[in-house]
């Protein structure tokens, strides 16, 4: 937490008024949701499937370098679409209102090693409820990194630039491990917990299927192109992982984003909850294509305010949300992707070392962090 609370100038009434104004923005979109939105997601899903099919088809001939290049690029984009604009958003329930059982958060499964069910729990329930609350929101550094001065430094953190890089390369496995709370659950006693074992089994099944598809079946189908296809799928997964990791890092890690203490969310009002989402998230600026490829998580602030609004609406919502930031004199953290990625990585490096100057800590707060 920064030394000066950037929301200190707001009165309690103002915070509640802000909450009402945000509710009004939300209601407006919900009242207007309709056929155009449904057409949008159907079109995206259909485009993703066609792109994946064509790319996999081209990769059957990946022994020829141009085919390898085109197929790998296509498959990378298809995988990114599947994860971001489609998977992430459907699993948030953004499209449940269509009542189409094929495009519903309870039935959707994505091309990712973390099963939908587990991801929905750790992401939708825990991360989105307790956004940026130290000790409650494990997305803060994914339990392997220190991303705020207030988190206790440990020599383990010296290696965090490396952990972060490896996490980026194998991000989907990192997420699966994270959803399983592997660090906590690998302790001898917890390992035997039947509930954990069932979840671990589900992840195992999912990994087996995905690996079999990407690294055995499709290469085998390619015959003489076996190895190039294997390399192509590996590359596509790598590209997808690094891309999604970068986008996700930009959501909560760049400089200017606030983190919160456990105590601060006790008895939080709707207005205060909104305010925490506003202060705890950061956007990426850019073109329509950029917003699309990030699954509209470039509108992370809007997404955190309204996680269940259809993603194609975040751009128009952002204009109104930004006006509220200005009205209430709050900082809207945003910037182009390279700048935000740099900022987030810079923080990872900086916090791998202990704090330069010890922050002023109240005894209470110290206790809080140790308890966390």
């Amino acid at each position, binding site marked *: 937490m920064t030394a000066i609370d950037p929301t200190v100038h707001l009165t309690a009434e103002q915070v509640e008024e802000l909450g009402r104004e945000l509710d009004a923005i939300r209601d407006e979109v919900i009242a207007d949701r309709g*056929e155009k939105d449904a057409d949008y997601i159907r079109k995206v899903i*259909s485009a993703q499937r066609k792109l994946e099919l064509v790319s996999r088809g081209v990769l059957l001939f990946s022994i020829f370098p141009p085919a390898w290049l085109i197929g790998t690029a296509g498959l990378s984009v298809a995988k990114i679409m599947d994860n971001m604009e489609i998977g992430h958003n459907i699993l948030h*329930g953004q499209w*449940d*209102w269509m009542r*189409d059982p094929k495009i519903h958060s309870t039935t959707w499964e994505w091309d990712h090693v973390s099963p939908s069910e587990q991801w929905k729990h750790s992401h939708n329930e825990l991360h989105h409820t307790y956004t940026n609350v130290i000790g409650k929101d494990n997305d803060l550094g994914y339990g392997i990194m220190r991303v705020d001065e207030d988190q206790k430094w440990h020599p383990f953190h010296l290696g965090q630039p490396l952990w972060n890089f490896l996490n980026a390369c194998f991000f989907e496995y990192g997420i699966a491990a994270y959803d399983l709370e592997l660090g906590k659950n690998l302790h001898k006693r917890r390992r035997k917990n039947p509930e954990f074992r069932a979840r671990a089994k589900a992840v195992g099944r*999912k990994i087996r299927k995905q690996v079999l*598809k990407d690294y055995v*079946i499709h290469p085998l189908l390619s015959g003489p192109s076996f190895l190039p296809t294997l390399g192509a799928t590996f590359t596509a997964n790598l590209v997808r992982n690094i891309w999604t990791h970068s986008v996700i890092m930009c959501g909560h890690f760049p400089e200017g984003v606030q983190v919160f203490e456990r105590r601060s969310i006790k008895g939080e009002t709707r207005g205060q909850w909104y305010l925490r989402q506003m202060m705890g998230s950061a956007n990426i600026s850019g073109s329509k294509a950029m917003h699309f490829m990030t699954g509209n998580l470039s509108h992370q602030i809007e997404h955190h305010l309204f996680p269940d609004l259809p993603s194609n609406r975040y751009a128009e919502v952002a204009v109104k949300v930004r006006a509220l930031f200005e009205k209430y004199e709050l900082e809207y953290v945003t910037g182009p992707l390279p700048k935000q990625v740099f900022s987030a990585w810079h923080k990872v490096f900086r916090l791998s070392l202990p704090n330069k100057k010890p922050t002023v800590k109240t005894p209470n707060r110290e206790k809080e962090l140790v308890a966390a």
Partner: protein
Amino acid sequence: MTSTALRSRAWKLLEMVTTPLLPSDYLDLVSPLRAGADLRGRIEAVRPETGDAATIVIRPGQGWRGHTAGQYVRIGVDVDGVRLWRAYSITSPTHRQDGRVTITVKAIPDGKVSNHLVRRAKPGTLIQLDQPTGDFVLPQAKPAKVLYLTAGSGITPVMGMLRDTEFDDVVMVHCAPQPQDVIFRNELHELVADKKLRLTEVHTDTDGMLDIARLDELVPDWAERETWACGPSGLLDAAEEHWTERGVQERLHTERFRPSIVVAGDGGGEVTFSSTGKTVDADGATPLLDIGEEAGVLMPSGCRMGICFGCVTPLKAGAVRDLRTGEITEAEPGVLIQTCVSAAAGPCDIER
């Protein structure tokens, strides 16, 4: 290895290729009406019948098993992006050469699906279909004398029968506000001209509602006729009473389109959708189907009037009230409730 076993092996392999999607997810892109796909249909034409009714010509998918005259079909239509299911009687004859089926829809005030189908549906649109069902049908042995007693869109299942089967002696009494509101009027009058039908039109705007006692005068031998009646609850209630009084109730067959909803007393309560983990407050008058859908739970649904059982869901705890009869159902192992005509009667737990 048998060919079936071989095919199922091949399919399993194909599933490994497409995981986590299914091969059908890709096949649906190119051939949504193929055999083996979820049953769908394509709207091929929308033909106006009256000012507020239209016939929808549907090409069903290859899995369509065909219907019996008088049956209805549930269709799922996307209205403003939201998939809504309704049931409509099939109006085409069973022997239609081109394999198409038709439903005839009357736009009812505030009816989301009916207004959409009559006024906005476009040829080429895919809709979801169920297999036809319903027992408002003719018996195997053709009855010698038949009476059709219909009102409004209640004529639709009867038209399916009239187009399908010829009778030696058939009388129809049909009620509609004005002559131009009579659906299929031209076709009915052609049948009359060919002496295939005796028809009495009751125009309720000028003649007033049909008094069931007038049947003695309109169709003196009504009690000897095998009768099929379809229309609003008021008409059907009166008919059932009339036939029962004369002790000929076994000759009367009725079909109700809309449930007659009794005004629920107080009640309601907290409803838990346990599989989804959602808990919401419900009043005692709103169907649990609507409550669930409002809360974002993917509820199975069907006719929304208590006839198709497409919405049945286990009631795990608590009690619900049947909105049509006021009857209370309490949770017990194996108890299924129709969520479209049941409301919370106190706190309850729905497995969804």
